[in-house]
Protein backbone atom coordinates (compact mmCIF):
# COMPACT_ATOMS: atom_id res chain seq x y z
CA UNK A 1 0.00 0.00 0.00
CA UNK A 2 1.43 3.25 -1.16
CA UNK A 3 0.20 6.80 -1.63
CA UNK A 4 1.19 8.11 -5.03
CA UNK A 5 0.97 11.68 -6.19
CA UNK A 6 -0.66 11.97 -9.62
CA UNK A 7 -1.74 14.68 -11.98
CA UNK A 8 -5.48 15.21 -11.87
CA UNK A 9 -7.24 14.79 -15.20
CA UNK A 10 -7.61 18.36 -16.46
CA UNK A 11 -11.22 17.68 -17.49
CA UNK A 12 -12.37 15.66 -14.49
CA UNK A 13 -14.94 18.27 -13.44
CA UNK A 14 -16.64 17.99 -16.83
CA UNK A 15 -16.58 14.23 -16.56
CA UNK A 16 -18.14 14.52 -13.11
CA UNK A 17 -20.88 16.79 -14.42
CA UNK A 18 -21.57 14.35 -17.25
CA UNK A 19 -21.76 11.42 -14.86
CA UNK A 20 -24.12 13.10 -12.40
CA UNK A 21 -21.45 13.45 -9.69
CA UNK A 22 -22.57 16.79 -8.29
CA UNK A 23 -21.13 16.94 -4.77
CA UNK A 24 -17.41 16.56 -5.44
CA UNK A 25 -16.63 19.95 -3.92
CA UNK A 26 -19.63 20.66 -1.70
CA UNK A 27 -17.84 21.45 1.58
CA UNK A 28 -14.38 22.04 0.17
CA UNK A 29 -12.62 19.44 -1.94
CA UNK A 30 -14.17 15.99 -1.59
CA UNK A 31 -13.13 14.06 -4.69
CA UNK A 32 -9.32 14.32 -4.78
CA UNK A 33 -7.37 12.67 -7.57
CA UNK A 34 -4.09 14.47 -6.98
CA UNK A 35 -3.14 11.24 -5.28
CA UNK A 36 -4.16 7.60 -5.38
CA UNK A 37 -3.46 4.58 -3.23
CA UNK A 38 -1.72 1.68 -4.85
CA UNK A 39 -2.34 -1.82 -3.49
CA UNK A 40 -0.90 -5.19 -4.35
CA UNK A 41 -3.37 -7.94 -5.19
CA UNK A 42 -2.35 -9.75 -2.00
CA UNK A 43 -3.26 -6.70 0.08
CA UNK A 44 -6.64 -6.39 -1.60
CA UNK A 45 -7.28 -10.06 -1.01
CA UNK A 46 -6.50 -9.58 2.65
CA UNK A 47 -9.13 -6.81 2.84
CA UNK A 48 -11.57 -8.96 0.89
CA UNK A 49 -11.09 -11.91 3.24
CA UNK A 50 -11.44 -9.73 6.33
CA UNK A 51 -14.68 -8.37 4.91
CA UNK A 52 -16.08 -11.79 4.17
CA UNK A 53 -15.18 -13.16 7.56
CA UNK A 54 -16.53 -10.13 9.47
CA UNK A 55 -19.81 -10.28 7.56
CA UNK A 56 -20.22 -13.84 8.70
CA UNK A 57 -19.36 -12.94 12.32
CA UNK A 58 -21.97 -10.17 12.10
CA UNK A 59 -24.64 -12.65 11.12
CA UNK A 60 -23.72 -14.68 14.19
CA UNK A 61 -24.13 -11.57 16.33
CA UNK A 62 -27.59 -10.97 14.84
CA UNK A 63 -28.49 -14.58 15.44
CA UNK A 64 -27.59 -14.21 19.09
CA UNK A 65 -29.13 -10.77 19.56
CA UNK A 66 -32.57 -11.62 18.20
CA UNK A 67 -32.82 -14.41 20.75
CA UNK A 68 -31.79 -12.27 23.70
CA UNK A 69 -33.82 -9.17 24.63
CA UNK A 70 -31.04 -8.10 27.01
CA UNK A 71 -28.72 -7.68 24.01
CA UNK A 72 -31.30 -5.64 22.12
CA UNK A 73 -31.68 -3.49 25.26
CA UNK A 74 -27.95 -2.87 25.36
CA UNK A 75 -28.15 -1.64 21.77
CA UNK A 76 -30.88 0.83 22.79
CA UNK A 77 -33.40 -0.74 20.43
CA UNK A 78 -36.77 0.27 21.89
CA UNK A 79 -38.64 -2.67 23.48
CA UNK A 80 -41.65 -2.21 21.22
CA UNK A 81 -39.48 -3.01 18.20
CA UNK A 82 -37.70 -6.12 19.43
CA UNK A 83 -40.26 -8.33 17.77
CA UNK A 84 -40.01 -6.43 14.47
CA UNK A 85 -36.24 -6.94 14.48
CA UNK A 86 -36.57 -10.60 15.38
CA UNK A 87 -39.18 -11.35 12.72
CA UNK A 88 -37.27 -9.56 9.98
CA UNK A 89 -34.42 -11.97 10.73
CA UNK A 90 -36.41 -15.18 11.16
CA UNK A 91 -38.31 -14.35 7.95
CA UNK A 92 -34.92 -14.08 6.24
CA UNK A 93 -35.45 -10.62 4.85
CA UNK A 94 -32.46 -10.02 2.59
CA UNK A 95 -30.14 -7.08 2.91
CA UNK A 96 -28.60 -5.13 0.06
CA UNK A 97 -25.39 -3.47 1.13
CA UNK A 98 -23.06 -2.18 3.82
CA UNK A 99 -19.58 -0.79 4.35
CA UNK A 100 -16.92 -1.86 6.81
CA UNK A 101 -14.42 0.82 7.77
CA UNK A 102 -10.93 -0.50 8.33
CA UNK A 103 -7.68 0.82 9.63
CA UNK A 104 -5.09 -0.78 7.38
CA UNK A 105 -1.46 -0.03 6.64
CA UNK A 106 -0.75 -2.70 4.03
CA UNK A 107 1.19 -4.88 6.45
CA UNK A 108 -0.80 -5.82 9.54
CA UNK A 109 -4.34 -7.30 9.38
CA UNK A 110 -7.12 -4.79 8.69
CA UNK A 111 -8.82 -3.71 11.93
CA UNK A 112 -12.53 -2.98 12.02
CA UNK A 113 -13.29 0.57 13.16
CA UNK A 114 -17.02 0.39 12.49
CA UNK A 115 -19.69 -1.07 10.26
CA UNK A 116 -22.02 1.24 8.32
CA UNK A 117 -24.66 -1.38 7.85
CA UNK A 118 -27.83 0.63 7.40
CA UNK A 119 -27.35 3.86 5.43
CA UNK A 120 -23.84 3.94 3.99
CA UNK A 121 -23.01 6.64 1.48
CA UNK A 122 -19.88 7.32 -0.63
CA UNK A 123 -21.25 4.48 -2.72
CA UNK A 124 -21.65 6.22 -6.06
CA UNK A 125 -18.13 7.65 -6.08
CA UNK A 126 -16.68 4.24 -5.15
CA UNK A 127 -18.78 2.29 -7.65
CA UNK A 128 -18.80 4.65 -10.61
CA UNK A 129 -16.59 7.71 -10.52
CA UNK A 130 -13.48 5.91 -9.28
CA UNK A 131 -14.09 3.26 -11.96
CA UNK A 132 -14.32 5.92 -14.66
CA UNK A 133 -11.13 7.46 -13.27
CA UNK A 134 -9.23 4.20 -13.66
CA UNK A 135 -10.58 3.57 -17.17
CA UNK A 136 -9.49 7.03 -18.27
CA UNK A 137 -6.14 6.93 -16.48
CA UNK A 138 -5.30 3.68 -18.27
CA UNK A 139 -6.74 4.92 -21.55
CA UNK A 140 -4.61 8.06 -21.40
CA UNK A 141 -1.47 6.18 -20.46
CA UNK A 142 -1.21 7.74 -16.99
CA UNK A 143 -1.45 4.31 -15.40
CA UNK A 144 -0.10 1.08 -16.87
CA UNK A 145 -2.36 -1.33 -18.72
CA UNK A 146 -3.34 -4.14 -16.44
CA UNK A 147 -3.93 -1.80 -13.51
CA UNK A 148 -6.98 -3.07 -11.70
CA UNK A 149 -9.32 -1.91 -8.96
CA UNK A 150 -11.19 -3.69 -6.18
CA UNK A 151 -14.59 -2.67 -7.45
CA UNK A 152 -17.37 -4.88 -8.74
CA UNK A 153 -19.94 -2.75 -6.91
CA UNK A 154 -22.03 -1.78 -9.90
CA UNK A 155 -22.40 -5.27 -11.33
CA UNK A 156 -23.18 -6.72 -7.93
CA UNK A 157 -25.72 -4.04 -7.06
CA UNK A 158 -27.64 -4.57 -10.29
CA UNK A 159 -27.57 -8.32 -9.78
CA UNK A 160 -28.46 -8.14 -6.09
CA UNK A 161 -31.59 -6.06 -6.57
CA UNK A 162 -33.09 -9.07 -8.32
CA UNK A 163 -32.72 -11.25 -5.27
CA UNK A 164 -33.37 -8.83 -2.46
CA UNK A 165 -37.11 -9.40 -2.36
CA UNK A 166 -38.82 -6.41 -3.99
CA UNK A 167 -42.59 -6.85 -3.78
CA UNK A 168 -45.30 -4.81 -5.46
CA UNK A 169 -45.39 -3.14 -8.84
CA UNK A 170 -42.68 -0.62 -8.10
CA UNK A 171 -39.79 -0.01 -5.77
CA UNK A 172 -39.93 3.21 -3.77
CA UNK A 173 -36.63 4.76 -2.73
CA UNK A 174 -36.59 7.49 -0.10
CA UNK A 175 -33.90 9.69 1.35
CA UNK A 176 -33.24 13.20 2.58
CA UNK A 177 -33.34 14.65 -0.90
CA UNK A 178 -32.16 18.13 0.14
CA UNK A 179 -28.81 16.58 0.98
CA UNK A 180 -27.04 16.26 -2.36
CA UNK A 181 -24.93 13.28 -1.35
CA UNK A 182 -27.99 11.37 -0.17
CA UNK A 183 -29.98 12.32 -3.25
CA UNK A 184 -27.27 11.04 -5.58
CA UNK A 185 -26.90 7.83 -3.57
CA UNK A 186 -30.65 7.22 -3.85
CA UNK A 187 -30.64 8.09 -7.56
CA UNK A 188 -27.76 5.72 -8.17
CA UNK A 189 -29.38 2.81 -6.34
CA UNK A 190 -32.62 3.50 -8.21
CA UNK A 191 -30.67 3.39 -11.45
CA UNK A 192 -29.22 -0.01 -10.51
CA UNK A 193 -32.72 -1.24 -9.62
CA UNK A 194 -34.09 -0.11 -13.00
CA UNK A 195 -31.30 -1.99 -14.72
CA UNK A 196 -32.41 -5.00 -12.71
CA UNK A 197 -35.87 -4.55 -14.24
CA UNK A 198 -37.84 -2.73 -11.55
CA UNK A 199 -40.02 0.34 -11.89
CA UNK A 200 -38.82 2.91 -9.37
CA UNK A 201 -40.10 6.00 -7.61
CA UNK A 202 -37.72 8.31 -5.76
CA UNK A 203 -39.06 10.45 -2.95
CA UNK A 204 -38.15 12.40 0.14
CA UNK A 205 -38.67 10.55 3.43
CA UNK A 206 -40.86 13.45 4.54
CA UNK A 207 -43.23 12.74 1.62
CA UNK A 208 -44.14 9.34 2.99
CA UNK A 209 -47.75 9.34 4.13
CA UNK A 210 -49.87 6.97 6.17
CA UNK A 211 -53.47 5.98 5.58
CA UNK A 212 -56.08 5.74 8.32
CA UNK A 213 -55.29 2.03 8.45
CA UNK A 214 -51.64 2.87 9.13
CA UNK A 215 -50.15 1.77 5.82
CA UNK A 216 -47.45 3.76 4.07
CA UNK A 217 -48.31 5.52 0.80
CA UNK A 218 -46.47 7.76 -1.62
CA UNK A 219 -47.41 11.28 -2.74
CA UNK A 220 -50.04 9.84 -5.06
CA UNK A 221 -51.50 7.66 -2.33
CA UNK A 222 -50.13 4.55 -3.98
CA UNK A 223 -49.17 1.84 -1.53
CA UNK A 224 -45.48 1.59 -0.70
CA UNK A 225 -44.95 -2.13 -0.81
CA UNK A 226 -41.16 -2.10 -0.88
CA UNK A 227 -39.14 0.83 0.41
CA UNK A 228 -35.42 1.34 0.14
CA UNK A 229 -34.72 4.01 2.73
CA UNK A 230 -31.50 5.93 3.01
CA UNK A 231 -32.72 6.93 6.43
CA UNK A 232 -31.59 5.30 9.66
CA UNK A 233 -33.73 2.75 11.43
CA UNK A 234 -32.80 4.29 14.75
CA UNK A 235 -34.49 7.52 13.63
CA UNK A 236 -37.54 5.78 12.20
CA UNK A 237 -38.35 3.86 15.38
CA UNK A 238 -38.25 7.14 17.32
CA UNK A 239 -40.32 9.27 14.94
CA UNK A 240 -44.02 9.92 14.53
CA UNK A 241 -44.79 7.00 12.21
CA UNK A 242 -42.91 4.44 14.27
CA UNK A 243 -46.05 2.51 15.21
CA UNK A 244 -46.91 1.93 11.54
CA UNK A 245 -43.66 0.01 11.12
CA UNK A 246 -45.17 -2.72 13.27
CA UNK A 247 -47.87 -3.44 10.69
CA UNK A 248 -45.19 -4.88 8.42
CA UNK A 249 -47.22 -3.97 5.35
CA UNK A 250 -44.08 -2.51 3.75
CA UNK A 251 -40.94 -4.48 3.04
CA UNK A 252 -37.93 -2.39 4.06
CA UNK A 253 -34.45 -2.40 2.62
CA UNK A 254 -32.29 -2.48 4.63
CA UNK A 255 -34.32 -4.87 6.81
CA UNK A 256 -35.03 -4.11 10.47
CA UNK A 257 -32.39 -6.55 11.70
CA UNK A 258 -29.75 -4.14 10.39
CA UNK A 259 -30.52 -2.12 13.56
CA UNK A 260 -28.30 -4.59 15.38
CA UNK A 261 -25.37 -4.05 13.04
CA UNK A 262 -25.62 -0.30 12.43
CA UNK A 263 -24.93 0.34 16.07
CA UNK A 264 -21.50 0.85 17.58
CA UNK A 265 -22.52 -1.64 20.28
CA UNK A 266 -21.83 -4.20 17.56
CA UNK A 267 -18.11 -3.64 18.16
CA UNK A 268 -18.47 -4.68 21.83
CA UNK A 269 -20.67 -7.65 20.93
CA UNK A 270 -18.20 -8.86 18.31
CA UNK A 271 -15.31 -8.67 20.77
CA UNK A 272 -17.36 -10.45 23.42
CA UNK A 273 -18.13 -13.35 21.07
CA UNK A 274 -14.86 -13.48 19.12
CA UNK A 275 -12.15 -12.09 21.42
CA UNK A 276 -8.75 -11.89 19.84
CA UNK A 277 -10.02 -12.10 16.25
CA UNK A 278 -7.28 -10.59 14.07
CA UNK A 279 -9.64 -8.12 12.39
CA UNK A 280 -11.19 -6.85 15.62
CA UNK A 281 -10.07 -4.32 18.19
CA UNK A 282 -10.92 -4.81 21.87
CA UNK A 283 -14.22 -3.00 22.48
CA UNK A 284 -16.65 -2.77 25.38
CA UNK A 285 -19.87 -1.10 26.35
CA UNK A 286 -19.02 2.07 28.24
CA UNK A 287 -19.28 1.82 32.00
CA UNK A 288 -17.97 -1.72 32.11
CA UNK A 289 -14.57 -2.53 33.63
CA UNK A 290 -12.86 -2.48 30.29
CA UNK A 291 -9.28 -2.03 31.44
CA UNK A 292 -8.29 -0.22 28.25
CA UNK A 293 -5.28 2.02 28.73
CA UNK A 294 -5.44 5.55 27.37
CA UNK A 295 -5.69 6.54 24.67
CA UNK A 296 -8.87 4.73 23.77
CA UNK A 297 -11.76 5.79 21.57
CA UNK A 298 -15.20 6.58 22.93
CA UNK A 299 -18.03 6.46 20.40
CA UNK A 300 -21.77 6.98 20.85
CA UNK A 301 -23.80 3.84 20.08
CA UNK A 302 -25.57 5.83 17.40
CA UNK A 303 -23.33 8.29 15.62
CA UNK A 304 -22.49 9.25 12.09
CA UNK A 305 -19.61 10.86 10.24
CA UNK A 306 -17.32 10.94 13.29
CA UNK A 307 -19.70 13.14 15.31
CA UNK A 308 -19.15 13.00 19.08
CA UNK A 309 -16.21 10.62 18.71
CA UNK A 310 -13.50 11.22 21.30
CA UNK A 311 -10.03 9.78 21.64
CA UNK A 312 -9.77 9.73 25.42
CA UNK A 313 -6.35 10.94 26.50
CA UNK A 314 -5.48 12.32 23.07
CA UNK A 315 -8.20 14.28 21.30
CA UNK A 316 -11.38 16.00 22.45
CA UNK A 317 -14.75 14.91 21.16
CA UNK A 318 -15.91 16.09 17.77
CA UNK A 319 -19.03 18.17 18.20
CA UNK A 320 -22.28 16.54 17.39
CA UNK A 321 -25.78 15.64 18.46
CA UNK A 322 -25.26 12.01 19.46
CA UNK A 323 -24.60 10.16 22.69
CA UNK A 324 -27.90 10.03 24.56
CA UNK A 325 -28.22 6.28 24.00
CA UNK A 326 -24.84 5.41 25.48
CA UNK A 327 -21.30 4.74 24.29
CA UNK A 328 -18.82 2.05 23.46
CA UNK A 329 -15.12 2.26 24.06
CA UNK A 330 -12.65 0.73 21.65
CA UNK A 331 -8.90 0.34 21.81
CA UNK A 332 -7.23 3.13 19.88
CA UNK A 333 -5.55 1.85 16.76
CA UNK A 334 -3.76 4.81 15.20
CA UNK A 335 -4.57 5.15 11.52
CA UNK A 336 -1.56 4.80 9.28
CA UNK A 337 -0.20 8.11 8.09
CA UNK A 338 0.77 8.75 4.48
CA UNK A 339 2.29 12.19 3.74
CA UNK A 340 0.35 13.68 6.66
CA UNK A 341 -2.94 12.03 5.71
CA UNK A 342 -4.91 9.37 7.56
CA UNK A 343 -6.73 7.01 5.19
CA UNK A 344 -9.67 4.82 6.19
CA UNK A 345 -10.53 1.86 3.97
CA UNK A 346 -14.24 1.55 3.23
CA UNK A 347 -14.80 -2.07 2.23
CA UNK A 348 -18.18 -2.77 0.67
CA UNK A 349 -20.41 -5.79 0.95
CA UNK A 350 -23.27 -6.32 -1.45
CA UNK A 351 -25.74 -9.11 -0.68
CA UNK A 352 -23.26 -10.50 1.82
CA UNK A 353 -20.29 -10.59 -0.58
CA UNK A 354 -17.19 -8.36 -0.62
CA UNK A 355 -17.69 -6.03 -3.57
CA UNK A 356 -15.19 -3.20 -3.61
CA UNK A 357 -13.35 -0.49 -1.82
CA UNK A 358 -13.31 3.28 -1.41
CA UNK A 359 -10.79 5.29 0.56
CA UNK A 360 -11.51 8.36 2.66
CA UNK A 361 -8.63 10.49 3.81
CA UNK A 362 -8.31 13.27 6.37
CA UNK A 363 -5.57 15.33 7.91
CA UNK A 364 -7.22 14.57 11.28
CA UNK A 365 -7.08 11.08 12.79
CA UNK A 366 -10.90 11.12 13.03
CA UNK A 367 -12.58 10.60 9.66
CA UNK A 368 -15.41 13.09 9.24
CA UNK A 369 -18.06 14.26 6.86
CA UNK A 370 -15.49 16.54 5.25
CA UNK A 371 -12.89 13.84 4.60
CA UNK A 372 -11.75 13.51 1.00
CA UNK A 373 -12.30 10.53 -1.30
CA UNK A 374 -9.09 9.23 -2.91
CA UNK A 375 -9.19 6.67 -5.72
CA UNK A 376 -7.19 3.45 -5.62
CA UNK A 377 -5.75 0.92 -8.02
CA UNK A 378 -4.18 -2.51 -7.88
CA UNK A 379 -0.78 -3.12 -9.37
CA UNK A 380 1.50 -5.99 -8.56
Amino acid at each position, binding site marked *: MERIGLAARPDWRDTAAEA*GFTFHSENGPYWDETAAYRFTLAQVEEIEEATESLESLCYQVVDRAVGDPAVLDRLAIPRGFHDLVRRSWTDRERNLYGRFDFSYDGGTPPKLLEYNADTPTSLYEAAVFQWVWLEQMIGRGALPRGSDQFNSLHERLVESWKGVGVVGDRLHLAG*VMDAEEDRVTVAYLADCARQAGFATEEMDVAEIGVTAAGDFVDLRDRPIRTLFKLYPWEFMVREQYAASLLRRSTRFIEPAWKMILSNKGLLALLWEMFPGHPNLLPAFFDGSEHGLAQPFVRKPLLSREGANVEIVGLLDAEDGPYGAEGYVVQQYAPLPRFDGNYPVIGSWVVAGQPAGMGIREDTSPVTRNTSRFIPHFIQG
Partner: protein
Amino acid sequence: MKRSRRIKLTMLGASAIVLTACEERVETQVYETVEQCLANVEEHPDDCRRDFESARATHVETAPRYTSQADCEAEFGDGRCEAGPAGQQTEAGQGGSFFMPVMMGYMLGNALGRTSMAAQPLYRPLVNGTPGSFRTPGNVDVGSSVGRTSVRPSAVNAPVANAGQAISRGGFGARGAATGTGG
Protein backbone atom coordinates in the same frame (compact mmCIF):
# COMPACT_ATOMS: atom_id res chain seq x y z
CA MET B 1 -9.99 -9.02 -12.62
CA LYS B 2 -11.36 -7.43 -9.49
CA ARG B 3 -13.57 -4.88 -11.09
CA SER B 4 -16.74 -4.40 -13.07
CA ARG B 5 -16.33 -5.07 -16.76
CA ARG B 6 -18.79 -2.51 -17.91
CA ILE B 7 -20.83 0.20 -16.26
CA LYS B 8 -23.94 1.39 -17.95
CA LEU B 9 -25.62 4.32 -16.30
CA THR B 10 -28.96 5.67 -17.24
CA MET B 11 -28.17 8.57 -14.91
CA LEU B 12 -25.26 9.75 -17.05
CA GLY B 13 -26.13 13.36 -17.47
CA ALA B 14 -27.72 14.18 -14.16
CA SER B 15 -30.78 15.78 -15.67
CA ALA B 16 -31.54 12.84 -17.95
CA ILE B 17 -32.08 10.22 -15.31
CA VAL B 18 -34.55 8.35 -17.46
CA LEU B 19 -33.31 7.43 -20.90
CA THR B 20 -36.11 6.55 -23.26
CA ALA B 21 -34.53 7.05 -26.64
CA CYS B 22 -33.61 3.48 -27.41
CA GLU B 23 -36.24 1.78 -25.31
CA GLU B 24 -38.61 -0.61 -26.96
CA ARG B 25 -42.02 0.96 -27.64
CA VAL B 26 -45.56 -0.36 -27.69
CA GLU B 27 -48.21 0.79 -30.16
CA THR B 28 -51.37 2.28 -28.72
CA GLN B 29 -53.88 5.09 -29.22
CA VAL B 30 -54.50 8.17 -27.14
CA TYR B 31 -57.63 10.35 -27.32
CA GLU B 32 -58.89 13.34 -25.44
CA THR B 33 -62.55 12.64 -26.14
CA VAL B 34 -64.79 9.81 -27.35
CA GLU B 35 -65.49 11.93 -30.44
CA GLN B 36 -61.86 11.89 -31.47
CA CYS B 37 -61.87 8.15 -31.11
CA LEU B 38 -65.09 7.80 -33.09
CA ALA B 39 -63.60 9.93 -35.87
CA ASN B 40 -60.92 7.33 -36.24
CA VAL B 41 -62.69 5.00 -38.66
CA GLU B 42 -60.46 2.08 -37.80
CA GLU B 43 -61.87 1.88 -34.32
CA HIS B 44 -65.05 0.12 -33.52
CA PRO B 45 -67.44 2.69 -31.98
CA ASP B 46 -68.29 0.32 -29.14
CA ASP B 47 -64.60 0.06 -28.24
CA CYS B 48 -64.31 3.84 -28.09
CA ARG B 49 -67.18 4.16 -25.64
CA ARG B 50 -66.31 1.12 -23.60
CA ASP B 51 -62.69 2.20 -23.16
CA PHE B 52 -63.74 5.72 -22.24
CA GLU B 53 -66.12 4.45 -19.54
CA SER B 54 -63.51 2.04 -18.29
CA ALA B 55 -60.92 4.82 -18.09
CA ARG B 56 -63.43 7.03 -16.21
CA ALA B 57 -63.94 4.29 -13.63
CA THR B 58 -60.21 3.67 -13.31
CA HIS B 59 -59.69 7.42 -12.97
CA VAL B 60 -61.71 7.49 -9.75
CA GLU B 61 -59.65 4.64 -8.33
CA THR B 62 -56.19 5.63 -9.43
CA ALA B 63 -55.97 9.40 -10.00
CA PRO B 64 -53.28 11.20 -8.03
CA ARG B 65 -54.82 12.49 -4.81
CA TYR B 66 -54.25 15.69 -2.94
CA THR B 67 -55.53 16.90 0.41
CA SER B 68 -56.19 20.40 -0.92
CA GLN B 69 -57.39 21.82 -4.20
CA ALA B 70 -54.47 24.27 -4.16
CA ASP B 71 -51.90 21.46 -3.97
CA CYS B 72 -53.56 19.71 -6.87
CA GLU B 73 -53.86 22.85 -8.99
CA ALA B 74 -50.25 23.70 -8.34
CA GLU B 75 -49.40 20.56 -10.25
CA PHE B 76 -52.18 20.44 -12.86
CA GLY B 77 -53.29 24.04 -13.30
CA ASP B 78 -56.16 26.29 -12.21
CA GLY B 79 -59.57 24.75 -12.76
CA ARG B 80 -58.06 21.39 -13.73
CA CYS B 81 -58.79 19.66 -10.44
CA GLU B 82 -61.98 18.25 -9.03
CA ALA B 83 -63.14 17.01 -5.67
CA GLY B 84 -62.92 13.27 -5.19
CA PRO B 85 -66.24 11.45 -4.95
CA ALA B 86 -67.89 12.26 -1.62
CA GLY B 87 -68.09 9.47 0.87
CA GLN B 88 -65.66 7.24 -0.96
CA GLN B 89 -64.38 4.76 1.55
CA THR B 90 -60.72 4.52 2.31
CA GLU B 91 -59.22 1.17 3.14
CA ALA B 92 -59.92 1.73 6.82
CA GLY B 93 -63.55 2.43 6.11
CA GLN B 94 -63.29 6.13 6.78
CA GLY B 95 -64.43 8.69 4.31
CA GLY B 96 -62.34 11.74 3.64
CA SER B 97 -62.31 14.58 1.19
CA PHE B 98 -59.59 14.82 -1.40
CA PHE B 99 -58.89 16.42 -4.74
CA MET B 100 -57.68 14.94 -7.98
CA PRO B 101 -56.86 16.24 -11.45
CA VAL B 102 -59.58 16.00 -14.08
CA MET B 103 -59.10 13.30 -16.69
CA MET B 104 -57.57 14.96 -19.74
CA GLY B 105 -57.67 11.99 -22.04
CA TYR B 106 -57.54 8.22 -22.18
CA MET B 107 -55.44 5.50 -23.67
CA LEU B 108 -57.21 2.64 -25.39
CA GLY B 109 -56.97 -0.76 -23.81
CA ASN B 110 -57.96 -2.88 -26.79
CA ALA B 111 -55.49 -1.14 -29.10
CA LEU B 112 -52.68 -2.86 -27.29
CA GLY B 113 -53.66 -6.23 -28.65
CA ARG B 114 -54.13 -7.55 -25.17
CA THR B 115 -57.78 -7.99 -24.47
CA SER B 116 -57.29 -8.07 -20.72
CA MET B 117 -55.54 -4.71 -20.65
CA ALA B 118 -57.46 -1.92 -19.00
CA ALA B 119 -57.91 1.44 -20.66
CA GLN B 120 -56.05 4.14 -18.81
CA PRO B 121 -57.08 7.65 -17.83
CA LEU B 122 -54.51 10.30 -18.71
CA TYR B 123 -53.48 13.54 -17.02
CA ARG B 124 -51.38 16.50 -18.05
CA PRO B 125 -49.30 17.95 -15.21
CA LEU B 126 -47.97 21.45 -15.78
CA VAL B 127 -44.57 21.97 -17.30
CA ASN B 128 -43.38 25.57 -17.00
CA GLY B 129 -46.93 26.68 -16.36
CA THR B 130 -48.68 24.97 -19.25
CA PRO B 131 -50.09 21.44 -19.54
CA GLY B 132 -47.30 19.07 -20.51
CA SER B 133 -47.48 15.65 -22.07
CA PHE B 134 -50.05 13.00 -21.18
CA ARG B 135 -49.27 10.86 -18.18
CA THR B 136 -50.80 7.67 -16.86
CA PRO B 137 -51.91 7.29 -13.24
CA GLY B 138 -48.53 5.65 -12.73
CA ASN B 139 -46.95 8.93 -13.93
CA VAL B 140 -45.52 7.38 -17.08
CA ASP B 141 -45.08 9.89 -19.88
CA VAL B 142 -46.95 8.80 -23.02
CA GLY B 143 -46.17 11.84 -25.13
CA SER B 144 -48.40 14.68 -26.36
CA SER B 145 -49.81 13.27 -29.58
CA VAL B 146 -53.42 12.26 -30.05
CA GLY B 147 -54.32 9.25 -32.18
CA ARG B 148 -51.94 6.43 -32.96
CA THR B 149 -48.82 6.63 -30.88
CA SER B 150 -46.22 4.51 -29.21
CA VAL B 151 -45.49 4.42 -25.50
CA ARG B 152 -43.00 2.91 -23.10
CA PRO B 153 -43.96 -0.63 -22.12
CA SER B 154 -44.25 0.44 -18.47
CA ALA B 155 -47.12 2.74 -19.48
CA VAL B 156 -49.39 -0.19 -20.22
CA ASN B 157 -49.05 -1.72 -16.76
CA ALA B 158 -52.45 -1.98 -15.15
CA PRO B 159 -52.96 1.08 -12.97
CA VAL B 160 -52.74 0.40 -9.25
CA ALA B 161 -55.69 1.52 -7.15
CA ASN B 162 -54.86 4.03 -4.48
CA ALA B 163 -54.25 2.50 -1.09
CA GLY B 164 -56.53 4.85 0.69
CA GLN B 165 -55.91 8.49 1.21
CA ALA B 166 -52.97 9.57 3.30
CA ILE B 167 -54.31 11.12 6.48
CA SER B 168 -50.96 12.68 7.20
CA ARG B 169 -47.47 13.05 5.81
CA GLY B 170 -44.11 13.98 7.22
CA GLY B 171 -44.00 11.47 10.05
CA PHE B 172 -40.51 10.47 9.01
CA GLY B 173 -37.60 12.74 8.33
CA ALA B 174 -37.55 15.13 11.27
CA ARG B 175 -34.18 13.98 12.54
CA GLY B 176 -32.33 13.93 9.27
CA ALA B 177 -33.73 17.07 7.67
CA ALA B 178 -31.26 19.08 5.61
CA THR B 179 -28.09 17.47 6.89
CA GLY B 180 -28.58 14.05 5.39
CA THR B 181 -28.09 10.82 7.19
CA GLY B 182 -25.49 8.79 5.38
CA GLY B 183 -22.38 7.52 7.03
